[in-house]
């Protein structure tokens, strides 16, 4: 709770800075503030309290994921300095929006009441709509914002409808009360229907197949930094929230009581297989790096959905997977931001010869792609390993085999980028070494490798 208040306060400060004309200091100040929030969050870790009539409940799950979100936001804010160089007058707005987005994200994983859950989603989504359209003179960015807004509000509507049905069935918005009711033998059919609608809405936010159609266009059209935010932070938030929703409302035991568990598992397996396969196959054909990462994100969503088959035991695995994926994503995007700055597009040709002109950044991008492809010693490998381990334990060996085949396919497009960096001739020299981009890239890939060397640090947090 204190975290949430602190984040909101920080956002308000950012806006005040604009008025006080203190733009130069805004990035370091916000980073310091977020580090403070992170410390506060660590301090809160382990406590389980609820505030305001159960509106917000702090648990290990919520604090662990909030820490991840705060860390990701620190990286994204640090990248802002360079990215918004040409929009100095707007920088405080953009940063404040990111901070408010973080507030929404934290609310989404620490809700104790479905009303708060919806509020969190809307805070996050509206911030994302604004950020997607934030390059206001660029037609593509406007299109992305508009598309995202239309599709996103539609999904929000479906979620809201689902919440209403759950309320109709249970007579409460409170998570604890609903979870108690859901174990009773006689349940109105409205409860599972409501849950399905909420899940569909969340799958839309996660961009899982078949609710993924918005993702590639929006990712490509949005400014690169917003794409970075959407593919790392927003995706992680959405999947963690859905996980919390399904585990918090006791959906699995309730379905077991009603003999519907098998159907639910089948649906998850199908969506998961479809997401990874479609995402990977589409990614193979992309020449735009942002679009490629959008499709790769869809396939990773499919992997993350595998944790839903073992909800009771896999919170730690989900945290680890999302951390590994998001850190690799941040490292990759910081290199993309550097390479594609002042370019009109993010085509793969921009990366030609990066291994010669800038070996450090090329190595970092290689590392992050290897992590996403699941090559040891990067944490992406362990994430997949733990996930497969968990899933085989639950008896879904076919799903794991499909996932393995998809991992092989994904190497195809990740390596396309690596090949472009190392085996093509450089087309132009880039000058300047923006400190913050380098710092973010180095720190995030280092964290990724540290997670790989000591997986227990994160994996055992939620046990």
């Amino acid at each position, binding site marked *: 709770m204190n975290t949430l208040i602190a984040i909101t306060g920080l956002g308000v400060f950012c806006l005040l800075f604009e008025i006080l004309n203190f733009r130069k200091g805004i990035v370091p100040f916000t980073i310091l503030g977020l580090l403070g929030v992170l410390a506060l969050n660590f301090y809160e870790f382990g406590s389980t309290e609820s505030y305001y009539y159960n509106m917000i409940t702090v648990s290990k799950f919520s604090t662990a994921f909030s820490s991840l979100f705060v860390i990701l936001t620190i990286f994204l804010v640090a990248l802002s300095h360079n990215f918004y160089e040409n929009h100095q007058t707007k920088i405080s707005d953009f940063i404040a929006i990111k901070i408010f987005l973080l507030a929404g994200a934290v609310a989404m994983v620490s809700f104790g009441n479905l009303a708060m859950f919806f509020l969190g989603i809307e805070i996050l989504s509206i911030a994302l709509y604004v950020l997607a359209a934030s390059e206001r003179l660029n037609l593509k960015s406007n299109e992305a914002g508009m598309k995202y807004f239309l599709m996103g509000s539609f999904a929000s509507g479906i979620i809201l409808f689902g919440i209403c049905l759950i309320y109709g069935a249970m007579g409460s918005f409170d998570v604890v009360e609903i979870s108690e009711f859901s174990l009773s033998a006689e349940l109105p059919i409205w409860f599972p229907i409501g849950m399905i609608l909420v899940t569909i809405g969340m799958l839309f936010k996660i961009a899982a197949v078949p609710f993924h159609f918005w993702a590639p266009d929006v990712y490509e059209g949005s400014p690169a930094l917003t794409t970075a935010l959407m593919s790392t932070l927003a995706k992680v938030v959405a999947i963690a929230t859905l996980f919390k929703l399904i585990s918090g409302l006791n959906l699995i035991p309730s379905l077991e009581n009603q003999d519907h568990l098998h159907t639910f598992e089948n649906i998850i397996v199908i969506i998961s297989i479809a997401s990874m396969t479609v995402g990977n196959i589409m990614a193979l054909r992309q020449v735009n790096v942002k679009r490629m990462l959008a499709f790769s994100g869809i396939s990773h969503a499919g992997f993350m959905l595998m944790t839903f088959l073992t909800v009771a035991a896999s919170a730690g695995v989900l945290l680890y997977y999302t951390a590994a994926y998001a850190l690799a994503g941040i490292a990759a995007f910081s290199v993309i931001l550097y390479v594609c700055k002042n370019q009109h597009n993010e085509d793969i040709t921009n990366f030609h010869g990066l291994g010669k002109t800038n070996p450090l950044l090329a190595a970092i991008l290689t590392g992050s792609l290897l992590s996403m492809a699941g090559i040891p010693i990067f944490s992406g*490998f362990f994430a997949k390993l733990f996930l497969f*381990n968990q899933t085989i334990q639950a008896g879904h*060996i076919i799903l794991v085999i499909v996932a393995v085949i998809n991992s*092989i396919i994904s190497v195809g497009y990740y390596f396309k980028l690596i090949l472009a960096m190392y085996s093509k001739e450089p087309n132009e020299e880039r000058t300047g070494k923006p400190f913050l981009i380098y710092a973010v890239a180095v720190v995030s890939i280092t964290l990724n490798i540290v997670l790989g060397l000591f997986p227990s640090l994160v*994996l055992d947090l939620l046990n």
Partner: protein
Amino acid sequence: MNVSTILIILLIGAFATYFSGDKLASKVALLFSLAALGCSVVLLNNYNAGVNISVICNWITQPKIAFALNADGLGLAMVLLTLALTPIIIFSSFGNEYKNAKSFYGLILFMAFAMTGTFLAADGLLYYIFWELALIPIYFIALIWGNGDADERRKAVVKFFIYTLAGSLFMLTAFIYLSQKANGSFLIEDLYKLELSSCEQFWIFLAFFFAYAIKIPIIPFHTWQANVYQKAPTVGTMLLSGIMLKMGLYSVIRWQLPIAPLAAKEYLYIFIGLGIAGVIYGSIVALRQKDLKKLLAYSSLAHVGLIAAGSYTLTLDGLRGAVLQMIAHGFVVVGLFYAAEVIFRRFETRNISELGGIRTQAPKFTSMFLILVLASVALPGTFNFVGEFTVLYSLSQINIWFAILGGTTIILGAYYMLRMFQHVMLGETNSKTFADVTLNEGISFAVIIAVLLFFGFYSKPITDLITPSLETILNVINKN
């Protein structure tokens, strides 16, 4: 001191090489590889004296993964092979100039690190991690420093990478499945103890087979090999053919056979047959090659086919012969590829028809090359004879026809190798001049030849080293 010291030396060496700069890189790398070799010799002495040099400590709690390095005779023999070849390979590259040498030599040491780890790891997951780690450096070595047309090279290297990764991911799935059966443990002792049904064993065996057959390579998974050998820089080819494919053969003996013995026994004929098919196919294709490196690649395919067939016989002689031949082949193939490189340095071609008449200009080089060629066709008195003969003997115990067909590797091998020698070294004098071997080149050749001849006459030290651990493995295979 225990075996992790070797790994630490190699890993520090890789970073030190990278940070020492382009000029010093090759020397620093050589220094560290020699240090690792020295360390392994000391450890070997300790091991023979009965000191425990294995390591085991917990790494990840959930799932239970241990940092376990187990040094037995077999593992140590492979580690010694790796660490003896690495300095030779590094030293042999001294005549070449590489762009960005610090990364190049750093990657070589890193690869030696990963391969040594593979040979020592006693935890399935740790083993898998090292196995995959070895793939990354060779990918970049072949991609960045390779020769020939960039586009073709890219295709060959990517194919190689995806092939091997695909195989090993199936192995990973198998490991996860096995650990579920062993109550979450990946330790090799626990996996050895498992009692699996024959159906389970069949699938596990197959998953392992994909990984190893691609790496070794066994027919029909060999299609990546010749192109990559040809396109990679010679150092990369030496690493691949000399050490890396031994990872696959070693793993067959260490992991595949003891974990799924029933499947191995049931499908014995099929897998020996595949190995023998590799022998015949490799030999016949080698007959038609015009490129020196490609010819050596296919001859290598034939030899490893025989080694694989030997390990699948599940007899002590087969396993022992396979290990001896692995070591012998490692040395001889490195020597042969180095000879090809020496020729390339002077003539800038590897096309056999453009070569000739080297003998009159370079008698020292010719005699060394001749010894290597004769060793590769298993002339009695060379180490390869010991290995190949033991394998053929074990094949004859299974079925005499296997031995006869496997014997073609010697007959056909003699034919294409000597024909190659005739075209390259004898015949009309090529118009270009061919300087005889330099001191550096001579040292590399001399070391390799010395090893081949010494163990050819006196293979007892290695046999004594590997036999106890092979007997242990055979006991596991025959436990039920």
